[in-house]
């Protein structure tokens, strides 16, 4: 009974309500973009650069080609969120796994994984991106894979560091003393105790990756530049920043609100996963 009420109380936090509603609204609008705004890419040169909040047809104004900014922001979220989420989830799964193996087993695997990670950290991202895309070609999937490849190292490093301290803790030793199998120790005891920093890193990296995707597209290494994406719109609007701020400000706001929502959710998740209820870094 007591456990039930406390579980309910967890959802009564401002962090959760704000974070969840922001995320749900944004994701919902993006998913329903085809229904809400069909023909977002329709060019209308007669109504170029309409300022926002002047025309009921174009609440957020129009861009230099007369396309509706609101419609493009909503439609552009598809690529941005897809790239942002999948690349982070992919990097987390791969990175956390590698970090756990390296940290728990030490020795040869640790050396192999970590030297490889160092090697990769030493390579500039752009160089890696150009080489990678030059070999496999630019596409949505390849962009996601590129981001996973370039970011798993962060998670692996964070996780390995935590595992190194956790594996010497007495509760892990006592699980070993009982005879608990390695993979169960890793899943049951190590993972829940190191997930906090990983969640924080995850929420930050979603925003990072949305922007990285745009810079890749800008360099001609990412997805097809004609498909709208937040990062792409931000880059396009740059030249008009002094005359038509709304072209880049609204996609920028979309990124900001998404990241804010995810950060709030991430903080809430991290705290509610911790039974002691303290706030940890």
């Amino acid at each position, binding site marked *: 009974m007591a*456990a039930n009420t406390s579980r309910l109380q967890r959802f009564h936090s401002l962090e959760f309500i704000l974070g969840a509603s922001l995320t749900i609204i944004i994701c919902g609008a993006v998913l329903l973009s085809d229904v809400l705004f069909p023909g977002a890419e329709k060019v209308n040169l007669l109504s170029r650069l309409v300022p926002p909040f002047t025309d009921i047809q174009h609440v957020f104004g129009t861009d230099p080609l007369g396309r509706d900014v609101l419609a493009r922001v909503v439609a552009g979220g598809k690529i941005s969120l897809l790239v942002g989420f999948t690349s982070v989830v992919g990097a987390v799964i791969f990175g956390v796994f590698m970090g756990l193996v390296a940290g728990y087993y030490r020795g040869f695997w640790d050396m192999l994984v970590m030297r490889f990670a160092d090697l990769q950290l030493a390579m500039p991202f752009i160089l890696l991106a150009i080489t990678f895309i030059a070999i496999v070609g630019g596409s949505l999937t390849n962009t996601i894979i590129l981001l996973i490849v370039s970011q798993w190292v962060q998670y692996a490093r964070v996780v390995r560091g935590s595992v190194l301290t956790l594996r010497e*803790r*007495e*509760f892990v*030793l*006592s*699980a*070993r*003393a*009982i*005879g*608990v*199998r390695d993979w*169960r120790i890793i899943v*049951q*005891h190590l993972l*829940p*105790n190191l997930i906090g920093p990983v969640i924080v890193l995850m929420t930050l990296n979603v925003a990072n990756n949305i922007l990285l995707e745009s810079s890749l597209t800008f360099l001609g290494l990412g997805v097809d530049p004609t498909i709208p994406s937040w990062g792409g719109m931000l880059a396009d609007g740059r030249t008009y920043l002094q005359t038509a701020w709304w072209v880049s400000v609204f996609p920028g706001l979309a990124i900001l609100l998404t990241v804010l929502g995810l950060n709030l959710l991430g903080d809430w998740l991290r705290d509610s*996963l*911790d*039974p*002691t209820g303290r706030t940890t870094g």
Partner: protein
Amino acid sequence: MTIEQAKPLLAVEGLSVEFGNSRVVDDLSFTVHPGKTVAIVGESGSGKSVTSLSIMRLADTMGAKFAAGRIVFGDRDLLKASQKEMRTIRGKEIAMIFQEPMTSLNPVFTIGDQICEVLMLHEKMGKSAAMAEARRLLDMVRLPDSEQLLKRYPHQLSGGMRQRVMIAMALACRPKLLIADEPTTALDVTIQAQILTIMRELQKDLGMGMVFITHDMGVVAEMADEVVVMWKGKKVEQGPVSQIFADPQHPYTRTLLAAVPRLGSMTGEEFPKRLPLTVLENDVPTVVGEERVQDTARYNEVPLLSVKDLFVRFDMRKTMLGKVTHRLSAVSKVGFDIYPGETLALVGESGSGKSTIGRTIQQLQTAHSGEISFNGRSYSAMSAAERFRMRQEVQYIFQDPFASLDPRKTVGFSIAEPINTHGLISGGKAVRRRVDELLERVGLSSAHADRYPHEFSGGQRQRICIARALASDPKLIIADEALSALDVSIQAQIINLFMDLQAERGLAYLFISHDMAVVEKMSHRVAVLYLGQIMEMGSRRQIFETPRHAYTRRLLSAVPVADPSAERNVTLMEGEIPNPVRRVGDEPAILAHEEIDPGHFVAKSA
């Protein structure tokens, strides 16, 4: 002189300290006179540390509110002083020593720099004058080779030396009052005896007042002139040390004193005894439990566990090519048997290898050489499946009940883990029933299973760890300092729980401890370890009544005696525990043993 004697150095009057809504110190009053020592005694959570931090006004930063009272030091009320004024008092007029000598020194500065800093700050000394004074201070705390020591870094010193450096720093400005918060709790007994002697002598020389905070009644008896007993934030009793020990008035003081294990209390007894316990029931001390002779060891049977010629070594330093140059011989040629139903105690100070032996038996550590066999079967002859089963037959209880439970798992999960791992019971309901039974057996209730470790006190957590160890129905339990982190009254309860379980289930214990008084209370046989080798082994009576080896005697004489009328230990114990890391090829000599009485083995000196 007499006038000065009458005026107290420090007077705490009606002090109440609150954290949020909870009052942790309530209406506390006591006085400290120059040259006298007031000991504040109490168990964890009694508010004794908060009291000391309040005198220093360090409690402010932790969010403490001083609800009432005064702390008069000299002519000033410290509670009215600003933090800026306090900074001129702290370190200069009131100094403090903390429990952990490991963390109270800054690792990146030399010892000399750190002592000089204090002198230059408070005494406005120049660098060279400060260095000379620092050297004098190190000599004062009897640290050898002070000239060289000034240039060393904290990690190059042992725990006892670091605590002496801390004392030297605290005394640098000749404070009028010294507050010592559990200064010897983290140290070995022989080192503790050294530190206590030094502190007593320095107090006599400098004539300062001392507030000594401790939970150890033995230390109180050795150090204090006056005792303040605290319980749940309140002072329950105060008086001269001899009176508190001889004629305690408050029920809590009586139960506390009754629970203190006293060395020599079992003299003449063949077997350990489960003794009834005085506990507070509705604030009335009542005696509970039976007295029973713990005659559980079955020496006629095959030894349950037998260790032969065990060596464990750690490689400490290697050359670039991976050749080992320095090794730590943690365990050298150790051998013993444990019979079913028997408690064998391994005693020794830090670095004696006692925990390593336990961990090797539990297969948490690989042996360099030697043989461990269980029920007559050697580990090396066992298959992987049999070795896995050993983790069901042998269970390990760790020292720190706070660290040995996963903070993110419910207590029920942790207790069920050995059952599930070894597939002993199938079905969630049946497992749950077993967990409930175990919790009730160790004195908790089944409702506790859904809670998390942080909701329990230290004693309760250690009970949970015991329940967990019992879950797989083991034959041998290795208790690695399992009582050291607990308050004495809880300790006494857990000792009885261990003994009851032994009588009930015929369990054997390998009891690893540094506390001679506890060992005397509960073990059948004792092995004394020093630097990885057994110095003396025999029955409890042989070791405690007729100790033969010099080290055993030294260990026994270092234990503080919880009796203020006994003569205080005035001779200073010399010597440190040497560094066990040795160059390869320079391994310590292996000592031969001789049997001087049946079952009584003593190492011959090399």
